[in-house]
């Protein structure tokens, strides 16, 4: 079970330019296996330039771009994203696993050893998840500052020799693969058995960092027939620098006193977790007092990792309730926004900013605004009106407001938005978006209880915990226009 080939492709800036293959790794033994397995149906991989062209076309970056292409978009074509198929003169190349990261397209071709005719069931192909995990690790390894990118790219051959010799994927954590390449010495006791995912051992002072990052997404419509939508989700990040081959940590994810107590639906965990109270919340337990803490026991790897993910579906109130009206009037827009902070939310922000994207039509010429606090500016591309609200809402009212007249510029410089969601914003259809971050706070009230953290074998360690609450895709739709919503069940 192996991958036949790996490609790292640089996507063209414009659809008419050609994509460039930055790196390729072929595995001849796997290719031989593919020939043996496919017999007469064998289709070889193409030379890099052709492969890149077809791949880019298939994922929708080619000259045809996002337009309808029957060979790709027909209802008859089975959709298996992120697994793609490309058609060549010799036949089809499938299954190509593709991952996009910024301007990079990472792709691999897993070997299908026993494919019966018309069997495109992805569960039956073990290398699909291996290929995907390998690409994720490559993406992680290549996520470096641009000035270091070229150097990191030159390390890719060694990286792949370590992560997937002969295309057989054996490690898909970028940090551990890079650590293995350093081959630093370790001292092991006779009773130790080092895990393959922990090649380096920490020596020195012990410390544990546990941080919770919680996000909220919201879509407010202010329309009778449509309900507001919101989602709260988060993750616990961990970095444990502890001596020993496999120390155990036990901790509780519970609810802090004097904060909201919204039960977490369930936990999904990192493979290093040995046991966890991760079960889904029974429906009748959603609002029955303070939820029980969730206990997690795990043996941490050396690198930073996400210990668990959670979501909370029983949120009753939005953190910031907003009302937004926008009316176009003869070359200008009359805008009015009112925001009210919930008294459940900590009134201290790292940042709080409202943005009104005007992506369809002419650029903004000027804005005549009167915010109740903060300042209003226009983005450098003159497509977004930005209201920097500041670090605090007024303590008494917890309300801020903005009225503004936005003067639009030369119509001949109008552009059309690129994404379908933004193309929807024509005429009265419009939204504003809220960006904020509240430090040392979570809306669910969950935190890592510092008193519950235990390490085995017992050792002294420095514990640091942190929390932050962030908005992500927090939209308020114009109450005079239509909103892009789904109908709730």
């Amino acid at each position, binding site marked *: *079970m192996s991958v036949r080939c790996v490609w790292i492709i640089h996507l063209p800036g414009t659809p008419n330019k050609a994509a460039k293959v930055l790196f390729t*790794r*072929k*595995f*001849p*033994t796997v290719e*031989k296996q593919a020939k043996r397995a496919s017999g007469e149906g064998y289709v070889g991989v*193409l*030379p*890099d330039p*052709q492969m890149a062209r077809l791949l880019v076309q298939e994922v929708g970056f080619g000259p045809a771009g996002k337009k*309808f292409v029957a060979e790709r*978009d027909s*209802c008859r074509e089975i*959709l298996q*994203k992120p*697994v793609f198929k490309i058609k060549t003169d010799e036949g089809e190349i499938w299954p190509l696993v593709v*991952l996009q990261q910024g301007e990079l397209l990472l792709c691999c071709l897993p070997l299908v050893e026993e494919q019966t005719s018309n069997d495109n*069931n992805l569960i039956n192909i*073990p290398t*699909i*998840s291996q290929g*995907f*995990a*390998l690409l*994720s690790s490559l993406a992680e390894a290549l996520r470096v500052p641009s000035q270091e990118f070229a150097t990191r790219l030159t390390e890719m051959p*060694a990286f792949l*020799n370590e992560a997937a010799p*002969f295309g*057989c*994927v*054996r490690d*898909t954590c970028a940090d551990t693969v890079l650590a293995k*390449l350093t081959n630093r*010495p370790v001292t092991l006791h006779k009773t130790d058995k*080092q*895990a*393959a*995912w922990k090649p380096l051992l920490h020596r020195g002072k012990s410390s544990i960092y546990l941080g919770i990052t919680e996000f909220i997404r919201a879509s407010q419509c202010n329309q009778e027939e449509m309900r507001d939508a919101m989602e709260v*989700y*988060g*993750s616990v990040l961990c970095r444990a620098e502890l001596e020993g081959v496999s120390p155990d940590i036990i901790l509780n994810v519970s609810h802090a006193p004097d904060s909201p107590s919204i039960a977490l639906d369930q936990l*999904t965990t*990192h*493979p290093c977790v040995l*046991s*966890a109270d991760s079960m*889904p919340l029974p429906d009748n337990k959603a609002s029955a007092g303070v939820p029980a803490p969730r206990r997690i026991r795990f043996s941490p790897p050396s690198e930073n990792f996400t210990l668990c*993910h959670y*979501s909370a579906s029983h949120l009753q109130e939005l953190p910031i309730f907003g009302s937004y009206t926008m009316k176009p009037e003869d070359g200008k827009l009359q805008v009015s926004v009112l925001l009210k902070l919930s008294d459940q939310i900590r009134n201290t922000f790292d940042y709080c900013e409202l943005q009104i994207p005007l992506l369809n039509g002419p650029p903004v010429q000027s804005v005549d605004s009167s915010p109740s606090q903060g300042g209003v500016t226009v983005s450098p591309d003159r497509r977004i009106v930005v209201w920097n609200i500041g670090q605090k809402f007024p303590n008494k009212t917890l309300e801020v407001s903005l009225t503004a007249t936005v003067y639009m510029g030369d119509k001949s410089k109008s552009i059309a938005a690129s994404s379908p*969601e933004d*193309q*929807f914003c024509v005429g009265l*259809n419009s939204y504003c978006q809220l960006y904020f971050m509240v430090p040392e706070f979570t809306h669910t009230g969950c935190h890592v209880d510092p008193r519950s953290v235990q390490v085995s074998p017992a050792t002294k360690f420095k514990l640091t915990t942190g929390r932050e609450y962030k908005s992500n*895709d927090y939209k308020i739709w114009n109450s005079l226009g*239509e909103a892009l*919503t*789904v*109908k709730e*069940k």
Partner: protein
Amino acid sequence: MAATRRRVADDGRQTLSNIRRNLSKGTVEKLFEDESFVFELLDALYEEEVDVTVKTELLAVLEQYGLDRLEASCAEQVAARLLDVLQEQRGSSDRLRFVVQLMLTLTSLVVTNDMLKTEPCGSLVSHLWEIVGRVNDVPSRRLRGCACQCLRQLETWSPGLLSRYKDRLVQAMREERTHVFQDYATLLSTVLTNLSARGDSTPADSIPADEVVPPLSFLMDNAFLFTPSGLWPVVLSVMELVKTTVHVAPSIFKPLMLQNLTSVDPCMLHIVLYIQKAFQGEILTAEEESQLLQRLTSGVNILTLRPAQRLLILQWIKAYLQQGGAEELQEEETAGSLQRVLHPTVFDSLDIHVDKLNVLTRSYPTDEDHNLGEDIHYLKRLALTTGNDQATVGLYRVLFAAYTHHQTQRVSDAVIKITQDLVVDYPHLIPLILDFLLAIKETLSDSTVYQATLSSLHSQVLSARQAEVLSHFRFYLQVLSASAKQPHIQQQKTIQFLVGLVRYAESSGACDWELGCAVLTVCRNLLLHHCSDYIYYDLGELLFEMQTSFSDCDIRNRARLLYALLAGASDEKLRDVLGSKLLGGVVLSQNITNMLTGSSQNLGKAEVIHMEKTGLEWQRVSLTPVFSSLESPSDLVHSLHVTGRLESYFQHLAYLKAELVYQYTLSLSETSEYEVLSAVSVRLKASTETFTPAPDIHLLSISKLGSKELTLRLVPRVPQPSVIDVQAMFCTEDHSTVSCLLDPVGVTFTDLTLTLPWQELGVDVLQDRHCVFDELWAVLTADSNHARQQGVESVKVVQCATDRIHRALNAFHLPHPSGDEGIVDKYLMFLPPSYHLLLQVVAQSNKQVVSMATDYWQILPCVSNYLNTIDSAT
């Protein structure tokens, strides 16, 4: 000496840059066609001067592109030399990357060149085993891990190769304490699997229990020490052993599965699913399996994961349900929970939204479609508001899934309604919609929705305005082409519509090759799928119209062919000729000539004879400017930056169409050698920069007995005086095709200076006309340094009396509002399509000072010449 070393190092680098260049062009394999190139690479490996990173890269290139091109003898030589290098280098801990690459290349060489039974393979195994044997040696652990992987490759390609090392391997795996334990375990699992499957017909007895069970238990007990991806091969080997021996039960996987039910790692999740599908009902209880499905579905909604990973989980859900897991959905509770979790949210990306709905529609019991309207609400709004291709592709994918699963009237109605709404505003979506309809027709035996939707689309196109259809004919005519294949759809109206469309296109100068092809495709489908008795006259008219309206020879010929087939062949013959079984065949032309009456003689192409004098003459009778209103603003109107009264004026101007209508009399002179000319065509060869293309004029015939009136309609793009060549072509009595030139049409300055159509421009009152004049004058004569200068001003003195110039320009004069004569006389001329010439004339003794302003400066020399003619007339 130093110079030699530098040269060697440079050679290595040059070879590498040559390889890189060929890599980027995709031609690196060609380098290896020359056998000496491989040895050139190998030589570089021995050179101390060549940098070790260069050597490593050369080896990697050799591994990837050079190995499968080697001859057997050459491969052995290469292996021998690489083994030498390995022997020499394997102890050097500072060259780990190089040695790792060397081991990989050497192993690949042995495998790809089928050298597993040869001496080099034996040597390689010895070398590798020697490395592997250094259990717990920390500095060499990377080499040992790689050596295990190399040995595993050899064992995979030559099962049993390492069976003699099994016991030592078991011991090594138990003793190994560094992270490469995983590699030892993987190697061992492969060796055990091959041992158990070795050539016996009753594999259950092939390996004793005490040789299998303890190491397997050890492996599974230490599964936690493996990386998720590293665990995969071990799990597959153990699964193979579970299937092939009686000593190991599937329950060996249960702890691993239960512990990883909550895992978010793609490999762990996949391993659990894979084992579950392989041993359905043998490991997990029904409750645990339901828990697994619930975890899988909730994984789609873990928003902190990469979108691609969420999509992958969705694929697994689809595959799980498709592969026998569908019975899960029989349980109402499981299905309900699945539907709740998979209902898309407004925050999902388009891909996830569409895929969720694809799974969701399949999860409803067949023929229950009550949620479709709500489910597709988001996609429908998006498609109807934006006409975006991606959103519409997604919408139709969901409709396809819904209709293939629930073939109900409600879904059918939804498809028709959405399709109608989309086509009204977004004709570019027609190919996508037709593809959907065809997919439905091909996938399902029931084609009701296909026929109903197509009929509805067909009616919609026929009721559309011709201008609209013409502007998007590439899309609209695809509907007519598809509906023409349906015998149950009446086609008389289609043909009449096409006749109207062709005539409209002709009058708009839009009869191009592409339009002709699109119309002919419809005609061909009509002939293939409909009885010619019903469409004979209408289709004949259309095809004749095409032969006359289109100037493109290809279109005319193809229309003529279809016309001939319609007129001369039976339906059966006609379908044989046009049917797909003959199309593209070399026999097509022979078949046509054999089947059509009178077409069996090959007459060759008609020759066009050009003649200087034919006796065909024409004379201009009159010129009349004709103003009419356009339905949409013309692209010929140039826009000035104006405000106030002029803004409204220019808005009217944008909708004004100005034509110069010339009447000509065409006659055949008495001296002509011909008595009668037939099929006379007159073509104006006007520059397309100056005029919009003028349609050809056709006459059935002309004789010496009488002349014919011809009307030429010219629509200027710019007011530029010009001379237009005119060509005539006709058929003579002796069936020759003759062409000749007629007197050119001269469009003069006076032809182009028209009286302003005040009423059409909404300026009725004289006072307002003065306002327009004054404001136009001000705009056109604004400061020349200003960036937005929009016109030019000029002055000319004409030596003539006031009444003379007044007589000459009287048609353009603006009388003074009070009725008295003013000091300044104003004249305003309209230059089609939308330009102006303004004159202000002041009399000074016996001369006139003419100030002029225009928004088309190129006209000024003509004005000057024209004023000179008045001057000289005095």
